[in-house]
């Protein structure tokens, strides 16, 4: 075999580099990102920003073991900080990566959407930009704030303040969801029917009338005051401002209110939007009717229609601020929620749900791999309650709205948005006003969102047994010489108004529950001996009253199995079917 003459010098140079003990990045090609190949030469303690390709061979466990500081998960890659030692370890473990910047310790990095024509060129004119995916770039500047340098109109997001690695799941393509439908629930129908077009239009107008809601302006703060007053007038619980600092010295406030759950008050579903706005004249005129008075009006309307009804779960209504600056409000909120260990079960983020470029318009529901169940339920609720079409997109790289910080902190979240990519010609302009919106579409989108929220939070019906509580599961593995049987023993607290119970199981998180008891269960425990047939399963229980009326489903109990000893967050069972569960440490737990 003959080497071409041009290869030999490269080999010699590589040999010299290796002989000198300098770390060398792998040679993956990734557009402009691949132009920087060596890393962190020079002073000790230097830090590089690297792009780790999500190849089929990549194992999160390896990154966890190496304690790699991953700051952003995208669809095809991870963005991480790495010092010389990390680089060396990654290389030795066969992890494919490219170096984006060698001097990351003193930089502010942004993830920027570059789907629009010319976006990458305009970014490069403003600073340094490396395309890490066809529609995504990382942007930074040599001096000053990258946030202030990024061209207007391009969606952007700052890195979270902590590693997102604990929440990265290198799953294969999500399994097809079971056919999801929501049952005809007259009470939910009633609640949804209360959503009012005129209320929505009035709320959009109210927010638009502040002229601008650009975070850092007094008008934005005044809009926050108005939202606080609106939540308070509905008699919601714990209405409050949550102040945060952004972009150095600015402060703003998220507006938070909640309808406290009666059965599971500690477990929370969130419906949220951002109320700040922007435009080229952002300090004086940014009406932001579609972006995002529409979403905020929907949150207000959801609060109004749900307020009178007792719910099993707590619903939190949040209007975030400083989204247009880089998701500051939601970043602060989600980060604190994770630090406080808040059990947030699902987040519905409504951002731009009022403009229809064509009728019938449909909603785009964007989720990450951990939140697909939420999108499936939204689609079902949309078809049933909103009479609005919806399309699910699993896109880890769509990080430019307030759902993204929840993803970064391991919470399931969806974004509902009118179009992706956006088609609203008034987007981020002074002409984004109420008269450009389609109120019928906004009403349908709100109804679908309220329908989903009500399905999740479970209104308590008068005359029905109370929802069972205290459900927990014990996994037992029985073995013979050649076979093992996984049984799940469920226990729950007796309900005084129940005569029997039904047990439901699903192998897809939160979806497709199927009743598994053939006879009514009169006690408060049940053994499922078919649990081992599928590695993922969760359970819920309902109470049945003397008249045969069945309660809402209990909160589900899922099993947590740590296959690698490294996972820290509770999750559903994820044992590959060809790996016997028996033999691994099994932790008893409830999601």
């Amino acid at each position: 075999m003959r080497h071409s003459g041009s290869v030999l010098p490269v080999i010699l140079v590589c040999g010299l580099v290796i002989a000198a003990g300098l770390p060398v990045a792998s040679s993956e090609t990734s557009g402009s990102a691949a132009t920087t190949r060596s890393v962190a030469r020079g002073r000790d303690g230097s830090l590089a920003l690297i792009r780790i390709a999500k190849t089929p061979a990549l194992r999160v466990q390896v990154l966890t073991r190496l304690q790699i500081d991953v700051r952003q998960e995208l669809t095809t890659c991870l963005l991480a900080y790495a010092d010389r030692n990390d680089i060396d370890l990654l290389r030795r473990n066969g992890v494919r990566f490219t170096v984006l910047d060698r001097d990351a310790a003193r930089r502010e990095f942004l993830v920027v959407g570059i789907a629009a024509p010319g976006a990458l060129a305009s970014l490069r004119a403003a600073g340094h930009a490396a395309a890490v995916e066809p529609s995504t770039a990382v942007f930074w500047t040599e001096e000053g704030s990258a946030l202030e340098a990024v061209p207007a109109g391009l969606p952007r997001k700052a890195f979270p303040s902590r590693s997102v690695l604990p929440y990265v799941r290198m799953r294969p393509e999500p399994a097809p969801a079971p056919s999801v439908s929501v049952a005809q629930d007259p009470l939910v129908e009633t609640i949804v029917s209360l959503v009012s077009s005129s209320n929505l239009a009035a709320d959009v107008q109210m927010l638009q009338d502040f002229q601008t809601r650009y975070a850092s302006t007094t008008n934005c703060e005044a809009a926050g005051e108005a939202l606080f007053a609106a939540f308070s007038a509905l008699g919601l619980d714990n209405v409050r401002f949550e102040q945060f600092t952004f972009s150095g010295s600015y402060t703003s406030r998220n507006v938070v209110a909640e309808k406290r759950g009666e059965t599971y008050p500690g477990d929370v579903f969130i419906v949220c939007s951002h109320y700040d706005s922007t435009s080229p004249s952002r300090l004086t005129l940014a009406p932001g009717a579609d972006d995002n008075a529409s979403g905020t009006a929907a949150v207000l309307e959801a609060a109004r229609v749900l307020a009178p009804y007792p719910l099993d779960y707590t619903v939190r209504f949040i209007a975030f601020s400083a989204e247009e600056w880089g998701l500051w409000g939601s970043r602060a909120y989600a980060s604190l929620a994770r630090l406080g260990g808040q059990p947030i079960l699902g987040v519905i983020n409504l951002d731009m749900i009022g403009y229809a470029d064509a009728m019938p318009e449909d909603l785009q529901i964007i989720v990450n791999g951990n939140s697909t169940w939420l999108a499936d339920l939204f689609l079902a609720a949309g078809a049933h309650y909103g009479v609005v079409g919806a399309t699910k997109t699993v896109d880890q790289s769509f990080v430019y709205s307030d759902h993204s910080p929840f993803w970064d902190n391991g919470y399931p979240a969806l974004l509902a948005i009118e179009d992706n990519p956006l088609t609203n010609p008034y987007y981020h302009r002074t002409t984004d006003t109420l008269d450009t919106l389609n109120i019928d579409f906004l009403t349908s989108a709100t109804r679908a969102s309220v329908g989903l929220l009500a399905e999740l939070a479970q209104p308590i019906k008068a005359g029905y047994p109370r929802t069972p509580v205290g459900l927990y599961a014990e996994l037992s593995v029985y073995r013979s010489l050649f076979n093992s049987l996984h049984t799940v023993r469920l226990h729950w607290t007796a309900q005084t108004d129940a005569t029997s119970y039904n047990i439901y199981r699903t192998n897809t998180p939160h979806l497709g529950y199927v009743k598994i008891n053939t006879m009514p269960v009169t006690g408060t425990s049940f053994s499922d001996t078919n649990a081992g047939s599928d590695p993922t399963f969760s359970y819920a229980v309902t109470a049945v009253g003397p008249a045969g009326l069945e309660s809402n489903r209990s909160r589900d109990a899922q099993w947590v199995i740590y296959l690698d000893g490294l996972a820290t967050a509770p999750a559903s069972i994820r044992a590959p079917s060809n790996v016997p569960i028996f033999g691994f440490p099994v932790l008893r737990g409830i999601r």
Partner: protein
Amino acid sequence: MKAGRLAAGLALFVVGLAAAAPAQELSASFGAGGFFPSDGAYREIYGSSLSFAGDLWLKLKGPVGFAAGFGRISDKGVAAPSSSDGTEAFPLEFRRTSIPLIVFYQIEAGPVAIRLGAGAGIHSYRETWQTVDLDFRGHKTSPRIVLAVSAAVIKRVSFFCSGSFESIRTGESSLPDVSINLGGFQVLGGLAFRVF
């Protein structure tokens, strides 16, 4: 049943050998006794088992002979929980059918005959969960050694007892990286009938 047909075939083979070879003696033995498994997991689930066997012993001219037979071990047990959480009982049934093929050396001392043999056992086994749909079947061949003693009682009838040991490594288990050994020590007692 496959094993039964195989046993009948082997018995016919031994009888045929007896007819064709310069056979000195053909006897049949029938016995029952106990099986003491060597595998701890087996003992934990099933304990010791009852076993039954029948063999044809063909002694050629001189002290050497062949034996073939049919053996059956069956027992009932309960699936063992892997942790203290398990409070339920899942009854199990285990059956093993064996075809031993032995070459033996016979020592005679008056009415007592002592046979030392070695050979192979062909095993077919099945473990069934009685209340859930779980079942396992397997086949294995293993080495076998045997010591049998018979003492004549009347003209053609002897008391008979034997001890045998087998190691049956299946390469299978409900646990990862573990191979269940279905072998162990078997003691039988019964009667032997001399055909000629």
